[in-house]
């Protein structure tokens, strides 16, 4: 722990933007106007044409004058997103499906890569070159832990599968003998 007392007046620029009016009663809107009282009446900028599918919040009546056209909704993730946009931003039915759609979209991305004859370079995409250079031990430990968990899971599932298979065979044998 370090106590490091600083004389405020020794700090360059101390107090040059001090504003005694800025207390909790002071409005944060720098320009107080009544324009919001007039509702959605301002002169709108030219509307950008929608040349791709754009989902918009149902908490507004229209598209904003400009919008992004990155990654329009496609595939299964797109279907989930379209469903999510039937609900307002106030609803979990809006946000939780969007998170699900994001995860589905990741799988779609991998399939798309493979369909284009390109297998994703996970090592490079995860930036492991940087980890290898600056935190080799941490990376090795992380990968070892992942391998151990994944390997353990595979072993457990295969052992469990074996047990189930044996149980099934026993059941069939029992059925045969009973006949």
């Amino acid at each position, binding site marked *: 722990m370090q106590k490091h007392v*600083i004389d405020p007046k020794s700090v*360059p620029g101390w107090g040059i933007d*001090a504003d005694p009016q800025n207390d909790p009663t002071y409005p944060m809107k720098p320009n107080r106007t009544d324009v919001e009282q007039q509702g*959605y009446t301002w002169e709108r900028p030219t509307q950008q*044409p929608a040349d791709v599918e754009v989902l918009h*919040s149902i908490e507004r009546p229209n598209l904003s004058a400009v919008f992004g056209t*990155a990654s329009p909704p496609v595939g299964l993730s797109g279907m989930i997103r379209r469903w999510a946009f039937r609900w307002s931003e106030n609803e979990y039915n809006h946000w939780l499906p969007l998170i699900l759609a994001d995860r589905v979209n990741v799988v779609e991305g991998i399939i798309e890569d493979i369909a284009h004859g390109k297998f994703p370079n996970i090592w490079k995409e995860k*930036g492991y070159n*940087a980890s290898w250079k600056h935190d080799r031990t941490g990376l090795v430990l992380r990968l070892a832990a992942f391998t151990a968990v994944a390997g353990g899971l595979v072993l457990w599932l295969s052992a469990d599968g074996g047990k189930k298979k044996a149980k099934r065979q026993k059941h069939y044998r029992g059925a045969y003998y009973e006949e």
Partner: protein
Amino acid sequence: MLAMDYRGPKRVRAVQKPMPEIKHPEDAIVKVTRSCICGSDLHLYNGNVPDTRVGTTFGHEFIGEVVEVGSEVTKLKVGDMVLVPFNIACGRCSFCQQGLFGNCHESNPMATAVGGIFGYSHTAGGFHGGQAEYVRVPYANFGPTVIPEGMDPDDAVLLTDVVPTGYQAAEMAGIQPGDTVVVFGAGPVGIMAARCAWLFGAGRVIVLDHVDYRLEFVKHYAPAEVYNFKTDMQDPVLFLKKQTDWLGADCVIDAVGAEAAGDVLQTITGRKLLVQAGSATAVHWAINSVKKGGIVSIVGVYGPTDNLVPIGNVLNKGLTLRANQASVKRLLPRLIEHVQNGVIRPKELITHRIPLEEVADGYRLFSDKLDNCIKPVLVMDSAR
């Protein structure tokens, strides 16, 4: 053109993408020369922001040269070097008219709670960002600002977000001369908030984080008293009470947001299981460590759903919560002045320069705080 490409949580790459096009008469196309990776990009990188679609380019802190303008652009011309505020604002809606340029109503159809932001998911408008060789910039008559003659490009690129966000954090804290200001988080925005707290007349500035090299940096840069909440104390709130005559700090700034460490329950529910909109540890501590009647200023970014915060204490202590995305365009004139006069020295925050081709390594470096990284900037081929 070469551009960053999001493929899923903690997976990004640089790929060739089509050149951006003018989609609206007030658009400009900017050839990017520098583009930072921001702490809030890590929320996207970690997959914590809903509607972050595969194939999107991130990046909301960038500068560059105007190479094309739409038919209604009158205030910029081809060849201008511009810094582009991270928020996209029309300048005409009722929110923009009140100076709330981070809350524009004409730049994001996908959500009404936030205005458009470059490269920040479809929840923030679905725009491709500036971690690319070229980017489409809407409302070019209003947002982009010509970089003043002689200004260092490294200073200019940090004026697009880090400096205004840190400054507005201090502004929203309502600092009165002599106040004790606590800043949670010693990332680039926390560092800048601590520095700017002095400009508003703070009497004492305390920064808490758990990364020693960042605390060491802010200790000299701001300057500030610094403490590591993992090694210097058991309970940050109790510690801060003891540091402030048992009353609490006058103003507390949350400059951390959704990726906060320090509380197991918050970390598991907010960062691992995603059952809340990120880990709310910093804002939780802020509410509990500010004095009665004090102000909590929030610039740390959280997701759009819910968080576990002690709202009952906000009521019982009579607190004021102030929060917003920085209104960059409003603050720029004053901040340019501060940079030109040497009052704020943004470029000192930049620790790493990374070619766009190695963007994945940049994200990993920043996310895992490797190699004493404070602020990485992607430098495009044309600017090297």
